[in-house]
């Protein structure tokens, strides 16, 4: 009786996993498009959804006549203020989700996330440094550039530290990441201490935000995330084989060491670019892969594209909630952790219960 019930549960789950991938992607893409329109329309200045679409079409096609009847402010608000922010949220959500999928796939650890190798601590240290020094050398670019440099520097140190132990095994990578992150967190604390009364700026940056993003920033993060996504999709099938162990993956035509290195670097660069523009946004990279794996199964050829769109949808939703629905804007990193944390507890408990069955 119990077994039959369990089996039927399993079957229903499988039927879920056999949904054609094209259909899933289409539904998510539509959802994202609707979300973008809804999100663009809402905010302090209300713009009707029809007008939002008109502005999109006008901007894309260059037929300005479409929006001639509108208030002059609306097109500016939509295309120069809201859209860059919305696109930044979507691209960062996509980048963090794909990066999380790749990290979990390589490290064979469902608790890995884009920040496992200390990328976030490195970015935090770089950004805190730029904020503390009040660097204006590169204008508005100094903080993202320092954050990116900090993240990449950390990645190199972690890989160097791991390589000295002979291999790129999951345990030694995670351990090296923890060591380096701990040192950098102490560094960030020290910078906060030194910053004195200015400490608020550093703290606020660390909590993450998409406020006042520009199209240039969107373009930069989109370029890195796009490249990372392409590489991840290309190696999706090879990632599946890593789950069978390095020796077996090798006997099936994949070089496990080389694959791990390529994927680690591209996933970390994606995470670094995301953190550089938006600050540290937790739980997206941890949670989205789990949720999506439930729908698509663990096959990376399905998991990666679906996670990319789901991550974009979710982070955009969270950012819209904080920007347009809450009475006061709450830092996005706080929102994702507040919603993501308890949700993760639920998933985790459920998994443990399944284990015991």
């Amino acid at each position, binding site marked *: 009786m119990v077994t039959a019930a369990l089996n039927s549960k399993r079957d229903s789950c*499988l039927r879920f996993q056999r949904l054609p991938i094209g259909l899933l992607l289409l539904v998510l893409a539509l959802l994202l498009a609707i979300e973008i329109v809804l999100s663009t329309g809402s905010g302090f200045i209300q713009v009707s959804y029809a007008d939002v679409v008109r502005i999109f079409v006008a901007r894309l096609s260059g037929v300005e006549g479409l929006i001639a009847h509108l208030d002059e402010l609306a097109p500016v608000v939509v295309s120069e203020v809201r859209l860059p922010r919305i696109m930044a949220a979507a691209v960062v959500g996509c980048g963090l989700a794909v990066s999380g999928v790749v990290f979990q796939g390589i490290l064979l650890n*469902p608790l890995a996330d884009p920040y496992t190798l200390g990328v976030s601590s490195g970015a935090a240290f770089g950004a805190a440094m730029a904020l503390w020094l009040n660097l204006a050398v590169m204008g508005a670019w100094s903080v993202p550039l320092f954050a990116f440099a900090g993240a990449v520097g950390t990645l190199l140190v972690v890989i160097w530290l791991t390589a000295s132990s002979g291999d790129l095994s999951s345990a030694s990578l995670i351990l090296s990441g923890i060591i380096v992150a701990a040192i950098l967190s102490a560094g960030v604390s020290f910078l906060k201490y030194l910053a004195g009364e200015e400490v608020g700026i550093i703290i606020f940056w660390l909590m993450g935000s998409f406020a006042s993003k520009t199209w240039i920033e969107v373009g930069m993060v989109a370029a890195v995330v796009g490249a990372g996504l392409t590489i991840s999709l*290309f190696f999706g099938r090879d990632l599946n084989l890593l789950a*069978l162990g390095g*020796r077996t993956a*090798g*006997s099936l035509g994949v070089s496990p060491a080389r694959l791990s290195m390529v994927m680690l670097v591209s996933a970390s660069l994606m995470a670094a670019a995301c953190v550089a523009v938006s600050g540290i946004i937790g739980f997206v990279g941890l949670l989205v892969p789990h949720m999506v794996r439930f729908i698509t199964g*663990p096959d990376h050829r399905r998991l990666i594209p679906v996670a990319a769109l789901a991550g974009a949808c979710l982070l955009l939703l969270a950012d819209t909630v904080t920007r347009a629905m809450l009475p006061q804007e709450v830092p996005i990193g706080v929102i994702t952790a507040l919603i993501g944390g308890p949700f993760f507890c639920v998933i985790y408990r459920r998994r443990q219960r399944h284990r015991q069955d």
Partner: protein
Amino acid sequence: MYELDHIYYGYDGKTVIEDVSLNFEAGHFYGILGPNGSGKTTLLDLLSGHLRPHGGQIRLDGRQMASYSRKALARRIALVPQDYRINFPYTCGEVLMMGRYPHLPRFSHPTDRDHAVVAEVIEQTGLSAFADRYVDRLSGGERQRVVFARGLAQATDILLLDEATASLDIQHAIALLNLADRRVGQGGTVIAVFQDINLAALYCDRWVCLRQGRLVCAGPTADVLTAATLRAVFDVSAQVVHQPFCGARQVCLNKEVA
């Protein structure tokens, strides 16, 4: 088929394989035997191309192993490891299909032939009831059978088994080894590391014995499997008797160890 020419392998100043020269011929069931740490698994890794020898040469069909691409090797050599952990909830069917990856271009879907091969292996290995179940919810022995079946689904002419039946009950061990043996009957080659001397005696027509990384003896089982060999390799006293019941030599041990 394989020619091993003065192979040397070691790391951290420790020699694992030392001066092994050996040929493997197609169409035989080879058993690799030796005490723990004698280099059996390393030898398999060298044969699969996972490791490169630090000295000497390995040729496969007259060509250097290093001159084959990994993909080309994966179409000729399958490895069934001892380790059967699979971390993600793939279904057994999906795991078996991974054995077909080397035969498929990166972005293409499995062909009818791939589905047919997988279905046949599932049937042969008696895994029909498991095909849609998640591997991470199976018992160790069941998962080991799935991993073995994955190796068969790769449909290579060389099959390397690294204690691939060590965690199975004897009924399933025999059933799976029969499938490997059938491959040998069809012209394939199986090279298997065994701990169980009697299973090795039952299936292997060629024995290779290693001790401390050196080749002790190799040849037809009838010549190699003797009490003297077992004493030299394992330091145990044994009686080797031809058993009409199983049609092979079997080993009888006493409690004495050197």
